[in-house]
């Protein structure tokens, strides 16, 4: 009970932020009825999904300050668990998704234990390597469809158990529920013991250790939480796209995108990953959709995207949220 109260407690934020959150919630709730097109809705779903990923990454990457670039493997684990259980045994999404999360947690423990012996760049590259190794294994593993991937059967009628709907609106509201669960969880997490300890580790690992913090264990815990979040999103991706293959759910690009959005929005802040996703997902999709088809402009959308990334990284390493806070401080 107290936990829930804690999760819903946003009192330590400024009034503006709280009003913003309320407006944002109203906007999200009303969004499917505003009458915007389906592409926009699909983009919104991507936005919510990547916010979810980003919030997960934020535990280890933002609060924990570890350069983690291997989250795609957990997207893959979530997506594959849901797909395989559905194809092999017809197990509903609501059963297979939690199992996927459990598998992700178990796997992240196994991999996290040796992984967190490493620090800095060694760690960053090792996370990429583990993800690539898992991807390669899935590409070659015949039992799970190898490179062909897995197609989920399309149901004739909408089916809540298997998360099959005709309209995106349903998917939208489901991912929105996940999004809010994640948001509330993160709101509690940032105020929790682990949250504080991780921030200390990020600032000064030696000092943290001298304050009685088992840094490696804390990092493993955060890594596991992050993996669980990401696996939920992975499971959702499987039922939403109805097709997964190792290239789309386990790619390095996806790992980088997840970390990039959270970082660019503002790591180690509650709003950061959401803001990052709110900027980059529409930018990526709309720019690609607008400029992608025009001759002679191939690559321009990427160049704009890239310049934005460079500008933010160079101007304010704490991301877009950092820029907002900077202005607020000046305003005071």
């Amino acid at each position, binding site marked *: 009970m107290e936990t829930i109260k804690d999760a819903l407690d946003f009192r330590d934020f400024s009034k503006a932020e709280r009003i913003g959150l309320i407006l944002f919630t109203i906007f999200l709730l009303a969004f499917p009825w505003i009458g915007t097109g389906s592409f926009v809705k699909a983009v919104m779903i991507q936005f919510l999904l990547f916010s979810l990923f980003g919030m997960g990454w934020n535990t280890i990457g933002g609060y924990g300050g570890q350069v983690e670039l291997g989250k795609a493997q957990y997207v893959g684990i979530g997506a594959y668990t849901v797909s395989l259980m559905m194809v092999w045994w017809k197990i509903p999404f609501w059963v297979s998704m939690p199992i996927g999360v459990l598998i992700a947690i178990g796997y992240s423990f196994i991999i996290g234990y040796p992984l967190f012996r490493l620090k800095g760049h060694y760690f960053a590259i090792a996370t990429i390597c583990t993800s690539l190794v898992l991807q390669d294994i899935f590409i070659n593993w015949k039992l799970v469809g190898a490179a062909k991937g897995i197609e989920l059967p399309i149901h004739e009628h909408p089916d809540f158990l298997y998360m099959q709907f005709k309209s995106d609106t349903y998917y939208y509201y489901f991912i929105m529920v996940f999004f809010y669960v994640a948001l509330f969880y993160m709101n509690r997490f940032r105020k929790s*013991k682990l949250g*504080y300890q991780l921030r200390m580790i990020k*600032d*000064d690992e030696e000092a943290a250790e*001298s*304050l*009685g913090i088992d840094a490696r264990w804390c990092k493993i815990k955060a890594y596991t939480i992050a993996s669980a979040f990401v696996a939920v999103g992975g499971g959702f991706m499987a039922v939403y796209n109805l097709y997964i293959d190792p290239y789309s759910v386990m790619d390095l690009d996806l790992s980088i995108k997840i970390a990039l959005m959270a970082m660019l929005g503002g790591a180690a802040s509650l709003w950061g990953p959401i803001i990052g996703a709110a900027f980059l997902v529409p930018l990526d999709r709309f720019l690609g959709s607008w400029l992608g088809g025009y001759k002679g402009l191939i690559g321009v959308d990427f160049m704009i995207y890239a310049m934005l990334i460079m500008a933010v990284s160079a101007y304010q390493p704490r991301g877009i949220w950092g820029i907002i806070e900077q202005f607020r401080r000046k305003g005071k």
Partner: protein
Amino acid sequence: MIYLEVINIVKEFGGLVANNNVSFQIEQGEIIGLIGPNGAGKTTLFNCIVGFHKPDSGKVTFKGKDITGFKPFETNREGIGRTFQIMKVTTGMTVLENVMVGAFCRTDKRNIARAEASEILSFLGLEGVKEYHINELPIAIQRKAGLARALATKPELLMLDEVASGLNHKETEEVVELLRRLNTEKKITLFLIEHIMEMVMSVSQRLIVLDGGEKIAEGLPGEIVKNENVIKAYLGEKYAKSH
């Protein structure tokens, strides 16, 4: 029972001996100073005790328990706290949050941690800066914040690494006063590395002197000042003879 005992600690770094056969004992409730010229191996010795380094040989016991090779967080849980000479500039956390992290060591509840942290901050007279980020504060207050952080873990033995370096005279006196209060009011055993002789002489009840990785003297401040070896180590061979 001996409170803290260090027996024949040896620590080498790639052939360079940082600590050679250092042994000493500390009684509960004492204030002990560890002095020595630059590169004498003071910080290495600290690190060997709290567990940042694993000694090559030798033994450390605390309250009768062998803690050799314990990790820093484990020695902290045994009741040994430590502060650092340099506070790495922290950008993300306020002073209060920093101290709360220390308090979280003994509790899982945020409210308790916050209450304890506030209590310690007011004990150290830092209520006014609680919401500031550490890097926004002057060095003296940063040091105090570091002290507060370590105190929040409720150590029985507190190891302080150059707590007064870089402070002016008045600030140093404040720190000395603070340390005395910690020792008497909170019953914390203090073990400090210090450069400023004046300060360490006034606060310590006993001194240990390291030079070139070896313990060259141990005793009351009054004795140490007169010790031939110590003078030699600090002021050079020539000065010692002519003296």
